[in-house]
């Protein structure tokens, strides 16, 4: 136990650096993933060609099934090593849940609401931005939350291609046989994931507070 504490007190600048790298990689991946997946999800809702939807969902699903270690390795010849390929790999993982939830969220908007919006003179863009997007926000936010939690956990692997992060502590710990280092890296990732989940939960509640409140009042 004393080794544990002395490790923290002696090496806290390194730990903080690893934490910061970890956060940067994870959140870049999620934010970029959201920027890519939400518009694609919206396009799919409006797409009338059935097979395109299936194809896109298939590809997004496929990314999800590639073992992360393998995906990182595949990206080395394409993008080299470092932060960028790590973010790209994690971004690919984040697509599916956000895409799926955006699509489902848009589908869930009541047809009567859409009919009346159209009949009252909402343009297509206004319908998306002012009606469908706010109404599907609970879905999209929960997609982002799910993604964030496991992207943070998977980001520990990014250290294998030299992107740093908490995974670096684990890998180094293994190399020099220092269990406390492995421990700090692992627990750090867990705590980070839990905190991110909690904060996003608060954000989700805040963004949808009125809607949610009134919905529960109606039940």
């Amino acid at each position, binding site marked *: 136990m004393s080794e544990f504490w002395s490790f923290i007190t002696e090496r806290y600048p390194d730990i903080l650096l690893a934490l910061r790298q970890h956060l940067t990689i994870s959140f870049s991946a999620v934010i970029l993933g959201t920027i890519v997946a939400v518009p694609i999800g919206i396009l799919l809702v409006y797409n009338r060609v059935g097979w395109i939807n299936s194809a896109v969902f298939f590809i997004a699903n496929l990314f999800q099934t590639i073992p992360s270690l393998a995906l990182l390795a595949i990206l080395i010849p394409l993008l080299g090593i470092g932060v960028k390929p790590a973010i790209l790999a994690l971004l690919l993982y984040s697509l599916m849940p956000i895409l799926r939830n955006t699509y489902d969220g848009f589908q869930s908007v*009541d*047809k*009567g*609401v*859409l*009919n*009346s*919006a*159209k*009949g*009252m*003179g*909402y*343009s297509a863009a*206004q319908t998306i931005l002012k*009606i469908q997007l*706010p*109404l599907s926000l609970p879905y999209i936010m929960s997609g982002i939350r799910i993604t964030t939690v496991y992207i943070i956990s998977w980001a520990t692997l990014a250290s294998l291609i030299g992107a740093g992060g908490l995974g670096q502590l684990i890998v180094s710990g293994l190399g020099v046989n220092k269990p406390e280092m492995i421990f700090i890296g692992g627990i750090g990732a867990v705590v980070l994931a839990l905190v991110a989940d909690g904060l996003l939960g608060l954000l989700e509640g805040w963004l949808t507070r*009125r*809607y949610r409140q*009134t*919905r529960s*009042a*109606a039940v």
Partner: protein
Amino acid sequence: MIVLDHVNKVYDDGFHALKDINLEFKKGEITVLIGPSGCGKSTTMKLINALNTPSSGKVLIDGKDISGLNPVELRRNIGYVIQSVGLFPHMNIAKNVAVVPHLKKWDKEKIDRKVNELLDLVGLDHTIYRNRYPSELSGGQQQRVGVIRALAADQDIILMDEPFSALDPISREQLQDELIRLQQELNKTIIFVTHDMDEAIKIADTIVLMKDGQIVQTGKPEAILRHPANDFVRNFIGQKRLQSENELSYEIPLVDDVMITNPVTAFPNRGLAEAIKMMESKRVDSLFIVDRNKQLQGAVSIYRVLDMYGEEGKTVADVMIPVRFSVASGSTLPQAIELMDSHQLSNVPVVDGNNRFLGLVTRGSVVKHLAEVYPNLAPPQPAGEGEPV
């Protein structure tokens, strides 16, 4: 004024939804499009705000062909109310009402004033309801908001697509009354789609009756009721309503129209216990006794049967009392009522020339008949049980 000029609608699959529709919707009138489902009434209405475009023919609003207009702009100038209400659940009531003024970029103060005025107009106190959300309102309140939302930008034309048909009967009546009241104040050009003839007669200035994508008859409610164009119209209006509306052909109903045709009867050789069992299962308090030729022999009441119950060998023939009053088939209802009234009878049997029992006029059957002739005055029907005799 809105004119539909030789409008046809043919869908890609070849379905001919509208066949050469020529119509004129007068300014400041409520025109009701009515017909069975699939007759094209909704499709016709949606031509006006370009939710539906004609395959051939023209739609003119105040002389202007709307095919040349931007549909989004056009819709902002036409109020639109639908059956499922379609309030936006993420916006409060004030924002919902203000949707079109907002799209038209009115300034905030003007919007607020308008919203308050409209909420008060339909009896929703704006200090209470402005900040409520749609899910906090009852169905009737929600549709009130739906209606004023269609008025918020001072639209002259309002399209209403079965707006009240999802509401409970009481709310529906209230909203119909309110619409009539609002229309007296506002004088909008309203196109109202429904499949409910009572609703159409109540609110319409002009009724347009449609079937299979064609117009069957157009006219004032009174004119359609008095001079239905064909059997379809007659059936759609309902025969009894025709009789009650058309005083010239009003006939005094006969007992045969009013009587219950399957009253509870028993043969004379039935035992008393059987008689009680029958009355119990049919929920009546007396039985008419008829022989094999359906000739009326007499009647027994439950009291009489219970009095004599101790004597096991007796049959209903032994305890029945003769029927003192009956009316002949073909008598008028007033004759039967007169008889019931002067002799304090709860019912009177109807017999033919050979004293054969045809049916029974009861107080209940008279009320039921009146309710059918005057459907608007009908009290809510009690849960269906046997007719007490």
